[in-house]
């Protein structure tokens, strides 16, 4: 947290509210201001992104160096992978989306604050606490004081994690546990803010897609997070108070854990991707100069995936000996295609025949849609129990969920970082560095996860049809996979170089960036494409009619348009003949 942020923020803050609070470090620590808290979230996320990425680079390099281990130990490898996963899932994507929820929600809704500002502050410092506790054993281990951090994977299956005699296990459970508790409060806060603090003139069907995606994200968070607290709480009790839940020889059931954990695990994935998808929907619509194609179907699709996500948890457990219930979970898993399919369709149709401004946020947003196609098509093989028999626990899974979490979830959030950076700091980022970041990230990440999928499918160059197994510190069973790992690691480094440019840009532009109020204003001038966080309230969502009228020069930006606007269109009228003017 640099002083630049503080000053950058103060300037902005000054002309919105009068500020009489403490200064210096107390300013950050005591704050209940949603904007300051949003920035605290943001810096936590970026810091953790660096840590998690560094961990990934280290074990990625180790994998490429030799089929057997090169410089990590077996346990060290498992540990680094586990920490990478926990960091990225809990301390990067969640805080990054939280940053935008905090900063942007009140602006979108016309509220002066979040519903519960103190709860909000608690959420921010929960990230610090969780991150510090998770990484303490890492530091301890490097100093030779403690064992390794958790080495049981992010899913933490007992009895493996109850048997591991390391302080790292408890640290992971307690660290994530504290973060999960505060996150539950934050999720409730975000949800209630949308529910209660909305501008009275803003109806549900006026909400920009980002707000709708935020609603569903936080409903899913509220539903899912208690499950992980249950599961890990029981593990903690078993480890520390000798209670028995999951130990078979003492009468427990190891599978019980998986039922509880995956009830959390699947909705959690949607908590990770929905914010990014919401931002991408905002950005694609505005930067294509077209209103969202099929706004209501889009909202319905998010509702479908959110509901469906609560009913598919057992597709993570097809190999555990489930019998006929797999048919039901397969049907639910396939139903998810409907929801994400409509999202993809809506985004592509919005871009089609639009006028695309290839700015950095737009490039990341387009990648979200491409990433979702990869992720969904890979994921089909895990929703189907028959193909899961072969692909379970191969790198194909690794490729699939990285496509999901990174190219959909993270890319959408990166689009948000660039889109709103000027709004949050008052300064423009360096566009060359940003384009370099976009280029290396899109090429590097897609190449990286593509190679993972190829390794997992046994189709990587030189693999000779052998599948790379997941969570393997070594691949002594098939040394010919080294070429595939080498290519994968090269892509990882390409992506890493881009992230360096990203960090540099974020920090440097705080001081050196051009001062701007709305850099997108010029792109959108003459169009009726308002967004409340930039243009303020009152806000009426852009519709086919309002956009057309603005293009004809007839309507001021933000002005309300009569539903029967009667505009000529160079597109054919609606095919089913029901010309409802308010339809978007």
């Amino acid at each position, binding site marked *: 947290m640099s002083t630049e942020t503080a000053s950058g923020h103060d300037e902005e803050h000054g002309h919105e509210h009068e500020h009489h609070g403490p200064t210096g470090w107390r300013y950050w620590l005591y704050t209940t201001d949603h904007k300051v808290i949003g920035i605290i979230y943001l810096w936590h996320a970026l810091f953790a992104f660096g840590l998690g990425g560094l961990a990934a680079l280290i074990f990625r390099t180790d994998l490429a160096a030799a089929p057997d281990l090169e410089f990590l130990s077996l346990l060290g490898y498992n540990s680094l992978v586990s920490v990478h996963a926990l960091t990225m899932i809990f301390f990067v994507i969640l805080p990054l989306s939280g940053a935008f929820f905090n900063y942007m929600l009140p602006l979108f809704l016309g509220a002066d604050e979040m519903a519960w500002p103190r709860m909000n502050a608690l959420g921010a410092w929960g990230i610090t606490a969780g991150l510090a506790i998770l990484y303490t054993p890492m530091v301890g281990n490097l100093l030779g004081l403690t064992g390794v951090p958790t080495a049981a994977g992010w899913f933490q299956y007992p009895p493996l994690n109850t048997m591991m005699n390391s302080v790292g296990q408890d640290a992971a459970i307690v660290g994530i546990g504290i973060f999960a508790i505060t996150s539950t409060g934050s999720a409730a806060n975000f949800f209630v803010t949308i529910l209660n603090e909305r501008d009275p003139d803003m109806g549900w069907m006026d909400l920009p897609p980002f707000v709708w995606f935020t609603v569903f994200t936080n409903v899913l968070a509220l539903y899912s997070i208690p499950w992980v607290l249950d599961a890990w709480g029981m593990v903690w009790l078993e480890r520390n108070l000798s209670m028995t839940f999951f130990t078979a020889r003492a009468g427990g059931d190891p599978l019980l854990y998986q039922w509880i954990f995956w009830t959390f695990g699947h909705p959690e994935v949607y908590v990770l991707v929905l914010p990014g998808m919401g931002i991408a929907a905002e950005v694609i619509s505005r930067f294509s100069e077209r209103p969202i194609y099929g706004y209501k179907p889009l909202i319905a699709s998010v509702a479908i995936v959110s509901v469906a996500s609560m009913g598919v948890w057992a597709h993570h457990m097809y190999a555990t000996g489930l019998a006929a219930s797999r048919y039901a979970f397969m049907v639910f898993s396939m139903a998810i295609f409907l929801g994400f399919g409509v999202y993809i369709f*809506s985004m592509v149709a919005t871009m089609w025949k639009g006028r695309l401004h*290839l700015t950095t946020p737009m490039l990341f947003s387009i990648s979200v849609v491409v990433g979702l196609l990869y992720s969904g098509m890979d994921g089909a*093989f895990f929703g189907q129990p*028959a193909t899961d028999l072969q692909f379970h626990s191969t790198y194909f899974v690794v490729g699939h969920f990285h496509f999901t979490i990174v190219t959909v979830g993270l890319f959408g959030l990166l689009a948000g970082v660039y889109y709103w950076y000027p709004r949050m700091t008052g300064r423009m980022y360096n566009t060359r560095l940003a384009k370099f970041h976009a280029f290396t990230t899109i090429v590097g990440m897609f*190449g990286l996860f593509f190679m993972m999928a190829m390794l997992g499918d046994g189709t990587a160059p030189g693999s000779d049809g052998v599948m790379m197994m997941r969570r393997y510190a070594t691949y002594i069973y098939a040394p010919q996979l080294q070429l595939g790992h080498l290519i994968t690691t090269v892509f990882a480094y390409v992506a890493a170089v881009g992230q360096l440019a990203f960090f540099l840009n974020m920090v440097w532009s705080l001081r050196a960036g051009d001062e701007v109020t709305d850099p997108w204003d010029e792109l959108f001038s003459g169009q009726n494409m308002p967004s409340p966080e930039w243009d303020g309230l009152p806000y009426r969502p852009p519709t086919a009619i309002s956009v057309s009228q603005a293009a004809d020069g007839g309507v001021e930006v933000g002005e309300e348009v009569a539903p029967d606007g009667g505009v000529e269109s160079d597109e054919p009228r609606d095919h089913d003949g029901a010309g409802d003017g308010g339809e978007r």
Partner: protein
Amino acid sequence: MAFGDDIGPVVDERGDALEAILWGLVFLFTFVLFVIEFGNGVIEPEEEGLFPIATIIDFKQTMFLSALIGGGLFVALIVWSVFRYSSGVRARASRMAPGQGRFTVTMFVIAVLIIMSTTIFTGAATLAQTDEATPAAAAEQLGAGQQIHMDVTASQWFWRFDVEGIPGTQGERVVVPANTLVVFETTSADVIHSFAIKELGITKDAIPGQTNQAWFMVDHVEGETQVQAGDQTLAADRYEVHCAELCGKGHSKMLAGVFVVSQEDYETWAQSQGGEAALEPTGVGGGHEDDGGHDEGGMEGMDMGGDNSSDGGMDMTPTEDGHSEEEDH
């Protein structure tokens, strides 16, 4: 401002044709990767004569093909949009007609529903023929006249195989006969492991306090490796056994090999171990049993397996057959 001075306009786009082409190429790259990834799955070689993988691959290829066409189409549309509709090559956006989305979205939803239900029914049929069938139904489907039982026990970090009829426990490798349905029960002595033979399409968790059953069959031996039975050298094929669930630090080295030899050779091998080849009849008609013993080139066996898995697969209603099989016993 040193950095900001020489970057030109603050607006983050060039707005020329070069920009559209450059970024179009970047997204074309993702399209090419998409075609390679999913195209490779479509042209994956058949594994005839290996159960259950042969059945799974049939289904897998269909899935890869739908993904390639359905997903590839949309990636292609995105790439085209970037090339063709970018601000550098286009003066203004086409207008959207009010209510325009209704018809196309409905059509799209119907298309997705059709593809979804096709996948659901084919997937269910594939599952019913492979992992969700009973061993007896699988034997019927494959025409396997004989079966053998094996217990697989996992512990940190090795496998133990107790095959019926063979005294003692086999460790780093286990020998099983070809043309015989190998039915195994797997469990664990400590943490959760998973018994996986990816080449055969087998993944079954080994869970403490629980026994999971599955089965596989190889109907030909190509003789790419050997098994030593006393002073005799027998032709065998090796299938790699993996642990497919993180089980601690030795996880990636928890490997073993399943060595498949012909039924005749299996008897020789069993005798050399001081045991016997404990093959049980499955009750399936005897026509195929005789094929088992002598697989010189493996061609005969491969043809047989291929035929059976395809026509047996389509005509069969697995659950019913499974029940009738059990009643016969």
